[in-house]
């Protein structure tokens, strides 16, 4: 068996084990298995031996992704409904990395685009929230921000300052307060489907490595998004004032309170003062 044969064999097995239906139910697949795989003892046919791997593929991946989307699972009505969705998802977006943690990376866009779920906006929000938690879980660490920097920075240096946010921070603008739902689901308390309500969330990992979802007001959310793009603080405040049709003075007045929340919450990694 040469290198080309190894390629041929691995392509066949890799495709076969990702299939949704029993290998034995596809005569062409079973016949190909027959040419490559020896029959087993106790009468196992080649396709039955390959079937062991196919079955494990689905058990392993469904079990893995099950744990990653607790809120979405609840919204869909439980594990069976989630598994139906996850099976379709894994067929459409099979695993492409060694990293099982990334298995659900495309699930939020799958939920948003598949006709069976795309009209369920609560499910779409839940998928985005659950995935944001997954991303924050193992995002790179950031050094702890020293809040004394805030007091020691001259006032005239602030407009040009750039605010770097913690690497784990994710910003989600949603139509439902799904963070409260997620808390309730994880605590096992009885909940009802939440009604629609504009919700702006910061998902992040705090200094003690706990994952948190913090609701912030829409103006603060918009400013965080702008700052994350590398825009200096002064320009960012003006941009937010323009887009929200607010007086820039109002943004400036509220800035102190926001910075307190961001500092205490560990949202900020560094304040870079222009030289």
């Amino acid at each position, binding site marked *: 068996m040469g290198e080309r044969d190894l390629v041929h064999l691995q392509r066949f097995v890799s495709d076969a084990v990702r299939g949704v239906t029993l290998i034995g139910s596809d005569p062409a697949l079973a016949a190909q298995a027959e040419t490559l795989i020896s029959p087993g003892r106790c009468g196992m046919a080649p396709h039955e031996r390959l079937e062991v791997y196919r079955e494990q593929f689905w058990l392993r991946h469904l079990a893995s992704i099950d744990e990653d989307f607790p809120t979405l699972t609840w919204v869909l009505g439980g594990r069976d409904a989630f598994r139906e969705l996850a099976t379709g998802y894994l067929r459409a977006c099979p695993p492409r990395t060694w990293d*099982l943690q990334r298995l659900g990376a495309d699930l939020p866009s799958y939920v948003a685009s598949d006709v069976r779920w795309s009209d369920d906006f609560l499910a779409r929000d839940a998928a985005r929230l659950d995935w944001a938690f997954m991303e924050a879980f*193992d995002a790179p660490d950031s050094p702890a921000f020293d809040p004394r920097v805030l007091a020691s920075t001259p006032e005239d240096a602030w407009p040009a300052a750039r605010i770097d946010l913690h690497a784990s921070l994710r910003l989600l603008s949603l139509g439902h307060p799904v963070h409260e739902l997620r808390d309730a689901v994880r605590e096992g308390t009885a909940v009802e489907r939440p009604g629609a309500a504009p919700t702006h969330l910061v998902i992040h990992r705090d200094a003690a490595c706990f994952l948190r979802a913090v609701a912030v007001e829409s103006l603060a959310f918009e400013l965080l998004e702008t700052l994350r793009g590398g825009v200096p603080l002064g320009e960012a405040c003006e941009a937010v004032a323009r887009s929200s049709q607010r007086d820039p003075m109002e943004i400036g007045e509220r800035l102190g309170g926001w910075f307190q929340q961001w500092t205490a919450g560990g949202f900020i990694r560094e304040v870079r003062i222009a030289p």
Partner: protein
Amino acid sequence: MGFRERHAIRDLGVGVGFRRPHVVQVLRDRPPMDWFEVISENYFAEGGIQRRNLEELRAAYRVVPHGVSLSIGGAEPLDADYLSRLRALVRSLDAPWCSDHLCWTGFGSFDVHDLLPLPFTQATLDHVVERVKRVQGELGVPFALENASSYMEYRESTMPEEAFLAELSERADCGLLLDVNNVYVSAHNHGFDARAYIDAIPADRVVQMHVAGHADKGAYLLDTHGDHVTAEVWDLYRRALRRCGPTSTLVEWDESIPAWEVLSAEAAQARAVRDEVLATPREEQPWASAT
């Protein structure tokens, strides 16, 4: 000089895997345990909770990384990013060695996250030897390959797995991780003699052993790591110890993970078996004459 001596491979005693249900208890109480094995890929991230837990674990115990996704037998080039992350992990742990499985795990852009068997041919051997040399060179520590459990064999295979592993380890100059439960499972599934397999493995290259439980699925045995080690596997372990001498041993339990006390008792059982075998006078041990 043999592989273990050349690389100063120490016997770490009996360890267990570092698994989520025990993380809090282990890091808080630091219970007695000779060493821990961690799944390499779970700690490839640059930060986060897992990395922090690993640092705490390393501060208290010897930790050895064990991978499941290197795909040493894959038909496509090795993943440079994966290797670079593995090297960083090995260094951060000051690991005495690093291991993965004799298998392949995906093809094309797909990863099936399983330990798929290879055809045991001369061409496959040439292919894997070159890849093991590269991995070992990049890691800078001894690299050991584990015999995986398997549920199918290929018609093209021209040699038994143990002969493949023996020649591979010799030509690539790598170590072996002898998974005794996997030998038992594969022997049952394919109808070969597990004892003959153990006897054919080059003892001096065995840097580590695994023992674990499996499930009887009727037509085949499944390597679940979800139960106690069976009496038959303990017997094989005794045989492997008699051949290889004192060798770091890991009790694997990854499914239906029990309370720490149950896992710890299983490790104690492994320690008792080791003590019983290794207490036999040295002149009666085959490994004694080789050292």
